[in-house]
């Protein structure tokens, strides 16, 4: 900039020297620089020459060291200790549970050792996500999206299915959710067209879920995406009429659900009926719900559940298939008593609440949507896992973040948590200006069947 004077530069540098967080330097410099410029111009109008005006304008600003110190105090990284501590507590609980499980169980001997190996990897994933500048994801989200999509689809080609499905689809869900949120940000203030593009990206993420196939992942993905889109629209992300935007999201979704239902309806209804009346098919669909029911009905405050009837005298591990994976929460209640279950459940619920509070505090739009999506992904896992484990919904394959056994899910959840806390950490230290170019904005409107492009609309 031609008017950039050496004194001005010196002044701004002195201010910035006091501000330890480098990422806000640019913002502060721009703002103060604009101010000095305005002040200078006003002095010139009063009849001073350029140099005197500049010096006077700088003098008018005050002590640069003091300004810098005050700025530094407002722009500090923040730590969400409660979430951090709760996560640590959950990991320790997981350690205890895995240790006890390894001790009691057959064919489960090395689970605790594997746990000890994957925990440090998870912590590294957490640290990386925590210290990385998440704002970069905004620009890269589309590329990351396509790479993840391609890798997932390719991985299906080169691996064989387990139990008729591919596990990676579930991990795919965990990764793709925050990436989709990043993609949504790319279409910010793009109007209805932006929403349609977001829909296309969602459909792209839909493909692996169908290919694998994993309906659990598909459901969670759909529900999470709907929640994220609804919040984004309510926050006025896309511009345009909120009601029309919502219709634009929900109408195709509803249509898709209906089509799904028509093609798989029979199967769905059957599962639903069996879920309501598990006694109809005790060795098929009703098997798990019945087992969960009998395990939980005899649960004690502390200690082993009392098994009755056909399960009397059998071990809990034998009675509960998937005790070390999909039904760990049921297992904990049955094996150690429901007080343990309540404690873990309470920690998880407080964790969810704290996560949402940290998200609401976000001022930056991208930070908000990214941390919100990470929060939704973790919350969805927890809720579906607990509900399925308590027999309140028909059993689905999800993992319980941090607690249930599995290296991939542990590492991914730690990464998501790192991302969430990274956003919180940067609440006050990233530039959070919304850029508004009043005259360049184009908004598409659809009135009486006509497609109108409105150039005059204000933000």
């Amino acid at each position, binding site marked *: 900039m031609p008017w950039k004077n050496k004194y001005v530069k010196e002044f701004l540098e002195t201010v910035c020297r006091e501000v330890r967080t480098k990422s806000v330097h640019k913002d502060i410099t721009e703002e103060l620089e604009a*101010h000095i410029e305005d002040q200078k111009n006003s002095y010139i109008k009063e009849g001073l020459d350029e140099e005197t005006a500049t010096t006077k304008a700088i003098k008018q*600003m*005050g002590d640069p060291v*003091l300004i810098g110190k005050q700025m530094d105090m407002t722009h500090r990284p923040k730590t969400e200790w409660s979430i951090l501590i709760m996560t640590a507590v959950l990991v320790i609980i997981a350690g205890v549970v895995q240790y006890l499980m390894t001790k009691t169980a057959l064919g489960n001997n090395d689970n605790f050792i594997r746990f000890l190996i994957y925990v440090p990897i998870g912590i590294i994933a957490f640290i990386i996500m925590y210290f990385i500048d998440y704002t970069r994801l905004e620009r890269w989200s589309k590329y990351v999206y396509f790479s993840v999509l391609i890798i997932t689809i390719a991985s299906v080609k080169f691996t064989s299915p387990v139990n008729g499905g591919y596990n990676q689809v579930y991990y795919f869900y965990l990764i793709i959710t925050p990436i989709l949120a990043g993609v949504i940000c790319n279409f910010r203030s793009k109007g209805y067209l932006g929403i349609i593009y977001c829909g296309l990206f969602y459909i792209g993420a839909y493909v692996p879920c169908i290919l694998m196939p994993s309906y659990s992942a598909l459901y969670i993905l759909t529900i999470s995406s709907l929640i994220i889109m609804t919040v984004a629209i309510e926050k006025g992300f896309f511009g345009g009429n909120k009601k029309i935007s919502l219709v634009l999201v929900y109408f195709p979704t509803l249509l898709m659900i209906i089509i799904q239902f028509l093609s798989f309806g029979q199967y769905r209804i059957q599962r639903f009926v069996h879920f309501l009346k598990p006694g109809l098919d005790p060795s098929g669909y009703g098997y798990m719900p019945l087992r969960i029911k009998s395990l939980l009905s005899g649960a004690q405050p502390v200690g082993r559940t009392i098994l009755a009837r056909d399960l009397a005298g059998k071990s809990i591990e034998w009675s509960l298939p998937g005790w070390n994976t999909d039904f760990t929460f049921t297992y904990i209640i049955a094996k150690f008593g429901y007080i343990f279950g309540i404690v873990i459940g309470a920690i998880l619920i407080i964790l969810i609440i704290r996560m949402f509070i940290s998200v609401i505090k976000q001022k930056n739009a991208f930070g908000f949507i990214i941390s919100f999506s990470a929060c939704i992904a973790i919350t969805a896992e927890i809720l579906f896992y607990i509900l399925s484990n308590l027999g309140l919904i028909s059993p689905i394959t999800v993992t319980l973040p941090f607690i249930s056994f599995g290296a991939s899910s542990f590492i991914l959840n730690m990464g998501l948590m790192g991302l969430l806390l990274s956003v919180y950490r940067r609440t006050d230290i990233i530039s959070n200006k919304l850029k508004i170019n009043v005259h360049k904005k184009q908004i598409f409107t659809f009135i009486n069947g006509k497609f109108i492009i409105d150039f005059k609309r204000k933000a």
Partner: protein
Amino acid sequence: MLILRLLNSSDMYGYQMIEELETRSENVFTLKAGTLYPLLHTLEQQRMIEAYEKLSESERPRKYYHITKEGKKQFQEKKQEWEAYTSIVNKVLGGWDYAMEK
């Protein structure tokens, strides 16, 4: 509080605020820019105000500040406090005058 008052009427950028304050108070209040900006950033963190960037007439992007709902609420509270305070002071002064006149 004065900053909130200024932003309550319209969105402004920093320099504009100082100018506006000077004209409104007939040069009684002059706020140093060095005091203003840290204050603005703190208010922003307390979510009383929010910032956005807009191109001004001179085509240079400027950081405008906009008062939030919370900020408006805070302003009303502060205003009431201030009014209560001044009315008491006026009463005391008024009472004094009355006593003096007698």
